[in-house]
């Protein structure tokens, strides 16, 4: 399957755009996605931290991904 991954803040700079398509095996999880992205974008692993959000919720534990999920990479937030 292919998932679309949204990027914000510094991750948009790292991806070179506000979203990318990522080919993944069926039933891949948010953890698989992170590993996949870190191979493709080594700068991602150099951030203080980052989270995957699936359908507007932080994936604190690995969650299974589906093609229509809204998936986003959340670098360290700095609002306020």
């Amino acid at each position: 399957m292919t998932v679309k991954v949204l990027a914000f803040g510094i991750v948009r700079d790292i991806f070179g755009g506000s979203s990318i398509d990522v080919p993944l095996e069926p039933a891949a999880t948010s953890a698989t996605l992170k590993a996949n992205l870190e191979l493709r974008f080594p700068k991602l692993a150099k951030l203080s931290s980052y989270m995957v959000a699936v359908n507007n919720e932080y994936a604190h534990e690995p969650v299974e991904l589906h093609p229509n999920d809204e998936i986003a990479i959340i670098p360290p937030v700095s609002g306020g």
Partner: protein
Amino acid sequence: MIDILLTGEPLNINDCIQKVLAPEAGGIDVFIGTVRNATKGKQVLRLEFEAYEPMALSEMRKIADKAFGIWPLHHIVLHHRTGILAVGEVPVVIAVSAAHRAAAFDACRYIIDTLKETVPIWKKEVFEDGEVWVAAHP
């Protein structure tokens, strides 16, 4: 009442305060974030705020809901701005009313502290000689 807003327009502080007034409330605490002219001794020209809007709104609401679960409150207003802000402009206003002041103070502080930890909003500091996404790197 919970009033959440994420907007590209300037925040209206007075409006936020008017919204939390209540005849049952005895204390209102208001936190106003402002853009500082310097960070770590370096002059800041402006800040650029970006939000993952649907999730930011959802996380802002979660924080307000949580605060209502912890303290006896009347109203919470939580407004955050996005886009380009000059020094002195206001990225965030939080207003909380409660019957007693301790709850208003505690809740207001909890809301700004938690917002800075969980709400997907990012700021880029722009200097004379470059720019940096705040908190991105160790």
